[in-house]
């Protein structure tokens, strides 16, 4: 039993000295190698009396197990130490700039258009787009603006070369309504919005010779001004905020009868009066009305059976309102420092 104690004592001392994996492996050789202390002790079993062999074997196995327990746990802790050291050395400056592709952006006009489209599509409207070059007939005559009509003055028109009162750049997206009604062979209910570019000879801080409008049209058997108001109330609340109020004022458009101008409560001052609303608390944003029976008839609709409402507004104006852009020329200026600002999801 002397040998056992010797080994135990030696192991106890040796354990304390181990600091590296290599030392640990050398220790394994010292105890469990071919000539290892425990291996050699085990070999002595042949000299042990038969009745003591079992106890001797158990003693050696216990020694072996003790060593291996130490070995495994020490190995694990040494390896972890090495890994930790390596990780420490691999530390980087996480504050350095990232590697990435530039972040793109959609133009505010696209963003507003999509917002409008999504809202109306969710209510069953179809987005209908027409061409930008139009006939005088579609742009004016079929909208109840015959040649020589004084209301044509309000929309100073770009005619194409040698096409006076014949072909033009559309002055209003209402032309798309005419096309939609003409295309609709059943001449039945219709629900569309028409966004698009329009052109007028006009240019200053609030007018651009090219701008964007969106037009809405609903035709059915029982459509009224009340439906128009409800629809526009919903629209303005969704786009400009839930607190927005809508006001109707009678007006005149040749293609609607009755016609109204639609004001919204100023979203900047909540109707108290500020520079934006010129102190009135209201901002004019839309023109609307009930589709004129002549307009319905000219596009093949039975105005005795069907009536409908139409509305139109400038997308540019909404973009200016929504993002606080003071000058319409900024929108078409395409300064990259302007465009890049619209590169994320908006708050809702």
């Amino acid at each position: 039993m002397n040998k056992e104690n010797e080994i135990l004592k030696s192991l106890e001392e040796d354990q304390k000295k181990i600091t590296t994996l290599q030392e640990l492996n050398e220790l394994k050789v010292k105890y469990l190698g071919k000539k290892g202390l425990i291996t050699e002790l085990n070999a002595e079993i042949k000299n042990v009396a038969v009745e003591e062999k079992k106890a001797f074997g158990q003693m050696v196995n216990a020694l072996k197990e003790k060593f291996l327990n130490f070995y495994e746990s020490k190995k694990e802790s040494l390896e972890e130490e090495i890994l930790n050291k390596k990780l420490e050395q691999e530390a980087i400056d996480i504050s350095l700039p990232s590697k990435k592709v530039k972040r793109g952006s959609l133009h505010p006009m696209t963003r507003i258009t999509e917002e409008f489209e999504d809202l109306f599509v969710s209510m069953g409207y179809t987005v209908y787009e027409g061409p930008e070059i139009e006939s005088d007939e579609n742009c004016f005559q079929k909208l109840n603006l015959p040649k020589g009509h004084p209301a044509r003055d309000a929309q100073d028109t770009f005619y194409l070369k040698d096409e006076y009162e014949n072909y033009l750049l559309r002055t209003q997206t209402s032309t798309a309504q005419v096309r939609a009604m003409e295309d609709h062979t059943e001449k039945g209910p219709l629900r569309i919005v028409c966004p698009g570019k329009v052109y007028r000879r006009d240019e200053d801080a609030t007018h651009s010779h090219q701008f964007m409008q969106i037009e809405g049209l609903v035709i059915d058997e029982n459509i009224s001004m009340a439906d128009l108001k409800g629809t526009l109330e919903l629209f303005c609340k969704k786009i400009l905020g839930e607190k927005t109020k809508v006001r109707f004022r009678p007006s005149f458009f040749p293609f609607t009868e009755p016609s109204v101008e639609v004001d919204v409560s100023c979203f900047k001052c909540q109707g108290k009066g500020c520079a934006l609303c010129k102190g009135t608390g209201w901002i004019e944003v839309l023109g609307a009305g009930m589709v004129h029976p002549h307009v319905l008839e000219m596009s093949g609709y039975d105005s005795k059976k069907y009536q409908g409402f139409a509305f139109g507004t400038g997308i540019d104006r909404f973009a200016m309102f929504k993002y606080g852009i003071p000058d319409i020329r900024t929108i078409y200026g395409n300064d990259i420092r302007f465009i890049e600002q619209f590169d994320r999801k908006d708050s809702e």
Partner: protein
Amino acid sequence: MKLSRKFVSDYIDLDPELSIEQIALDMTNVGNEFDSASPWVSCTNLVVGEVLECENHPDSDHLHVCQVDVGKEVLQIVCGAPNVRKGLKVIVALPGAKLPLGEIKKTTIRGVESNGMICSIAELGIDHKYLEEKDYKGIHEFDKEAPVGSDPIALLGYDDEIIDFELTSNRGDLLSILGMAYELGAIYKKKVKEMEVSFKENKEKIERDFHVEVKTDYCSLFLAKKVVGVKIKESPDFIKKRLMASGIRPINNVVDISNYVMLETGQPLHYYDADRLGDQIVVRMAKEGEKLTTLDGIERTLSTEDIAITNGEDVIGLAGVMGGLSTEVEMDTKDIIIESAIFDNVKIRKTSKKILRSEASNRFEKGLDPKRSYLAILRSCHLLEKYADATIVGGMIEYNHENMDEKVIEITLDKIKKVLGIEISMEEVKNIFLDLDFKVDVEKEKMIVTVPTRRLDISIAEDLIEEVGRIYGMDKIEGKLPILDVITGSYNKTRRNIKHKLADLGLNETFSYSLIPNQEVHRFTTDHFKEVMLDYPMSEDKNTLRYSLLYSLKEIYLYNKARNQSNISIFEIGKGFYQEEDIYKEDLKLAILMSGDYYLDIQNQKVDFYIIKGICEELFNYLGYENRYRFEASSNLPKEFHPGQSANIILQGKQVGVIGKIHPNILKEDVYAMEINLDQLLQNRPTRMEYKDIPKYPSIEKDFAFVVKKNIMAEELIEIIKKTGGKLLTNVRIFDVYEGEKVGVDEKSIAFKLTFMDPTRTLTEDEVMTVFNKIIEKVENNLSAKLRDE
């Protein structure tokens, strides 16, 4: 249209408690917008004063020190006007008075205390065009009787209030005091007073020695009366003030009366000097090139589109726009022929657009009520008799092809309710019509409404519904959502997907003008097309509709470069316009321009051809065109592109776009661009998205590199590799390209990684090597390539 409160009050009683702002708002609520509503003269704290003493200022050669009695007290005021003197009754602005030039305060002028200011008319803010020299050269001198301490504004007749309306083009009837009175009457439920038109006629008859002949359909009504013995002088003050308040400069009593009646009735009149005119008027279309010197002394050249008033031979007036100089009423005029006529509104609009917009033409353009033509000529006689001592000649020449009948329109209560979406009773509707001075007969459910001829804008039931809505209050309509069938809405998803994809790829969307300079329209394309130009462009740099969007993107690049912004990655989707056999066409196009940094990295990598090519491939693959397009080097590239760094984009044999570097002649910097015809591209259906089995057996990868001549395209190698590799070769990828010392000057090395796989079994090394070696042999033989030893 400027509305004077005093003027309209001749025809309707307005509650004095009603402020001018309130009237303007009430009018807005029935559809008549206004620009401004305010007192004519907005000065405060003015009184009539009497100059008791007037002495020279001790320290000035032109100032006077005055003691002025203003009723309650006597104030010392320093005054610089040359006409100030003792005993004068003057306008005094008391300390605290607000004048257009600022607030008047107690002050000291060169050591002398001054407690206010003695004013000229000009200093009250009266428009300069109405002023005589004395009104701005010196202080105003009242009559001796002017009561000290009273309101000088009222004494001067400037105590009026004015609303400046911006009327809609359908309401020509509101271009008259009477029309305004009817509108206000409907709002405030007041009756409009009758107009005074009585006068005496002498025993003569105009028809005896004067004739009118109308030789054109564009004149539907022509009335003429004659007055004799007029005395030309200054108009009575009230006429002058009302003209001024309405924006018209007074001239003399006769001319002023014609304008006054036009303002009252909306019917423009013309007065001819009867002696200068001769014995007839012939109305006809002008001859091409015919000349007329108009009242303003300018010689005008007429065309066959203009309606001419002639004396049978020469043109003496441009109908509806302006009279001629030769028959003008002058100081010595005695006898006058009065014309009250209706000319075609479209013709007048054209002529006035060409020659001159006037108060008269504005009214003719909007259309006139024939009943008013009669009323106006009678009213004119009444006023000429009263204020110009005229004797009215008996009879009237009448040429009248106008329909004088009032319109009768039937409408049901149901229809009104159905269109407006409101609950309203028959009684309420009837009252609205009565307030508007329409006649109404009720027959069971029907209302038969008779509309006065002045309301030219009303002709169908819907117009009456609008009247009901206007007076009821459009804003009182309660909004509700329409009850409609549930249907699916839709929009152009693909275009939106493209925009979002490109934004996700780091590009910024731009929005530029379609109109560009003509000399730029054929750039950035090799297409032959006829461009679309404008008739009367705003400017030469916006006279043509663009065909390619790249001109616009180039301009945007330059704009930003000038502002030191050099990292530009932009795109735009818009129309390209052209003509094809006289049909106007527009194609949807996508253009991209990139320059500077695209990868934001510490080591910047500048945009090159391969980055923009990558954008194009990303987009095409995303749209479902993978393996169906290629980039083709070509000698047929737009000359604005670098010939060696550009390509045509071919999808299934058809060119859909162009890509490459912008030619250094156009932009010195390294700028890359591409343009795709989206209409053409999207005609191709995307490949269907379909599940493919995930490989069960391992693949084997092999690498090799070839040295080839520089002019050999990688694409050519890949083509041979793929062809020879057959089915087992599932992928070929270039992983390195080398040019430099290790290869010849005109050579390059391209390294490929090949992937072999069979979906049904595990491949053996031997069979892969057999194919691999066959590929090497083919490439070497066909392209005189050398396998590069590692």
